[in-house]
């Protein structure tokens, strides 16, 4: 399996603080996506960063990609209680089965009001 590995497994912060979670992967990617999952149900796409991009922003989200280190990070600024969720990264690769999203166990973020 070529899933991404999220780190840390769990993160607890106060509302208003920033949250950073990391993702590592093993082989060259085409792109990497971040998803959020609330209450163990459907996933919501947050952001997609392509292999030739280094940084991308979307609202309070900032994603970086370092292909030399095979890693990505997701930063949530000025966190809110509603950001409490599990966050997953999904690297995508070339070749057979490249459409599959492979997820790790995620980072469980708790934002305390």
């Amino acid at each position, binding site marked *: 399996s070529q*899933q991404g590995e999220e780190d840390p497994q769990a993160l607890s912060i106060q509302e208003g603080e920033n949250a950073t979670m990391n993702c590592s992967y093993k082989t060259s990617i*085409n*792109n990497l*996506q971040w*998803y959020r999952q609330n209450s*163990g*149900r*459907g*996933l*919501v*796409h947050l952001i*997609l960063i392509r292999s030739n991009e280094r940084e991308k922003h979307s609202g309070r989200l900032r994603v970086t990609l370092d292909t030399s280190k095979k890693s990505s990070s997701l930063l949530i600024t000025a966190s809110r209680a509603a950001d409490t969720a599990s966050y*997953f990264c999904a690297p*995508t690769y070339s070749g057979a*089965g*490249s*459409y*599959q*999203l*492979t*997820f*790790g*166990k*995620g980072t469980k973020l708790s934002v305390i009001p």
Partner: protein
Amino acid sequence: GAGVSQSPSNKVTEKGKDVELRCDPISGHTALYWYRQRLGQGLEFLIYFQGNSAPDKSGLPSDRFSAERTGESVSTLTIQRTQQEDSAVYLCASSLLGTQETQYFGPGTRLLVL
């Protein structure tokens, strides 16, 4: 517009019974995916449909699992002779073309096999 919908939301069944899970993708999306998520785990890919091409069934865990899709619309995932280890959330997703772009997920069906 409507997102991906799945039914039922929850299903409790007895070991050995068959279950059928339904997914309605976003209209116009040619690609449809089924995933399984066990408690506290990541997603396991099960099956992928793309237009009229033969589906990729490489993720189906056993021959008790099968899925069908009618054209580019509804899909059903069938689990025969359910086992307790089949208990999980089954998630369906669709995407416009199936070429590594964003996948849109339904809310999932939580299956509990007693």
